[in-house]
């Protein structure tokens, strides 16, 4: 069966799908660290609905729906941070408002549209086997920008994830870091609409980070585990969908969920918590490291 897949790799659409899977898994999983630790689970679904609303508006006014979706996604991502900061509303509440507003715009537009809505709705499903060269180039550039940003500003990101106000008070440009992460989330979601689609990307923006949360206290390892889980889920999902002729997006999401379930079941952090409950002096024992704990700062 695997030989079939390897033979399939001779074909350009399958090569592109595999490459896109790796990039999609990498970009989404790196962002999932930020989304899980900042507790912004709604951000993925809000961004994808921004894309849907943009696409519908594009179709209504006669512009390219994909480009309009991409642009609105970036606008929403760019506006979210400043709007929630200025209104002094929690970002998750602001996301809920953005989400419902964008859904309202999308559905209103679809109600007005008299012709087929397939162009807009295709953004919600994606199709790995019909990717163009331009799709891959955009995805590669955005993934590279994200990777360079995380590597270059790792310590600033750590400070912001830990506590925004304290980060600002110690001279870390927390707003710039936070807003850039939000903007990159919009860029990653919009560039992946043609791969896994706007609905299923939600899972990839949560589950790799949630998987890493079960396994380590080290933020660098956290990013690596998330990236491994994300890429693994995407590639394994693609393989399964090819071998068993299943929808690729759904396969990817189900594999990601399975990886999370295994991490949760065998989570050393969770198990050490149980050990702590049994032995209240566990914290006092300073000679042992906790699982996933490193000694280098």
């Amino acid at each position: 069966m695997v030989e079939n897949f390897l033979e399939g790799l001779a074909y350009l659409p399958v090569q592109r799908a595999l490459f896109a899977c790796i990039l999609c898994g990498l970009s989404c999983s790196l962002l999932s660290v930020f989304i899980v630790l900042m507790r912004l689970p709604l951000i993925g679904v809000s961004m994808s609905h921004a894309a849907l609303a943009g696409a519908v508006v594009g179709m209504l006014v006669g512009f390219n729906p994909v480009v309009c979706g991409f642009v609105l996604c970036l606008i929403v991502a760019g506006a979210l941070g400043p709007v929630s900061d200025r209104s002094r509303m929690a970002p998750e509440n602001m996301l809920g408002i953005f989400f419902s507003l964008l859904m309202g715009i999308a559905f209103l537009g679809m109600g007005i549209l008299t012709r087929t809505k397939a162009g807009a709705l295709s953004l919600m499903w994606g199709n790995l086997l019909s990717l163009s060269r331009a799709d891959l180039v955009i995805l590669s550039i955005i993934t590279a920008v994200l990777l360079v940003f995380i590597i270059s500003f790792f310590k600033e990101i750590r400070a912001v994830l830990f506590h925004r106000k304290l980060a600002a008070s110690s001279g870390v440009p927390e707003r710039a870091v936070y807003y850039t992460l939000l903007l990159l989330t919009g860029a990653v979601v919009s560039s992946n609409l043609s791969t896994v689609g706007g609905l299923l990307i939600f899972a990839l923006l949560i589950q790799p980070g949630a998987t890493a949360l079960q396994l380590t206290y080290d933020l660098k390892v956290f990013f690596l585990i998330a990236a491994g889980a994300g890429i693994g889920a995407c590639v394994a999902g693609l393989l399964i969908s090819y071998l068993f002729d299943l929808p690729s997006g759904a396969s990817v999401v189900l594999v990601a969920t399975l990886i999370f379930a295994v991490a949760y079941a065998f989570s050393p952090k969770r198990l050490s918590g149980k050990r702590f409950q049994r032995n209240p002096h566990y914290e006092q024992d300073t000679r042992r490291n906790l699982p996933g704990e490193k000694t280098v700062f």
Partner: protein
Amino acid sequence: MHTPVIELDGVSVRKSNRVLLDGINLRVSRNEFVGIIGPNGAGKTTLLNVVSGFEKFDGLLRLFGHAESCNRARETRMRVGYVPQSFEIDPSFPILAMEAVMTGAYGRAGFFRSPGESERERAMELLEMMRIAHLARRPLGHLSGGERQKISLARAIIQRPEILLLDEPISNLDIAVQMEVLNLISDLYERESMAVLYITHDFNLLPKCMRRAVFVNHGRVVFDGDIDLALTGPMLSGLFEYSLETFERNGRRFVSFG
């Protein structure tokens, strides 16, 4: 009298037609330890937020002789340390106690550079002074409230602040830990050369080094002077609009209901 490092001239904060600060005037010199005292809702935390740059305001604020607004340079922010009342953290959050302390040095290290070995040694020295060096490799979320508050203090000190802002730093701790953290604050003040603004509404637990008290009520400074003049029954009764009296024991002054 040293040069003031904090100067507020007619600073006001208004939100939704509510006046949180009403024309505050205040000068704090280098090496001065000032207690900002007042009832709940008096405007103490708003005042601290103005100085730390987290609150928009009208009026004039000068830090280190330069006029500042809410949006200020990174270099100025680095010179002002901040310790919140407390902070909650998910027990599984991926940060160790030592890493949390080191985040205080990130701003000073600048972009693309990590804090050096000397900063790490200083962080460890601070943790030893606070008697929590053995917890350096523990996840921050596994520490108790008192241990987390010591980490928060160490994080602010490693920043090498010239102004330290303490927002009710012991209010969520038990009595034994309160005394320990208070003594620690006094020791740090003696050791580091900095001005300290210490917010509290508990006068039975004041650091020994606090010699000046500023009473704030309804967004205004209603008293600014020596702590011994401040801690009197009539003065406190007026501030809290409740009958209070003071008594001395073992050379310390305490406040009780009148």
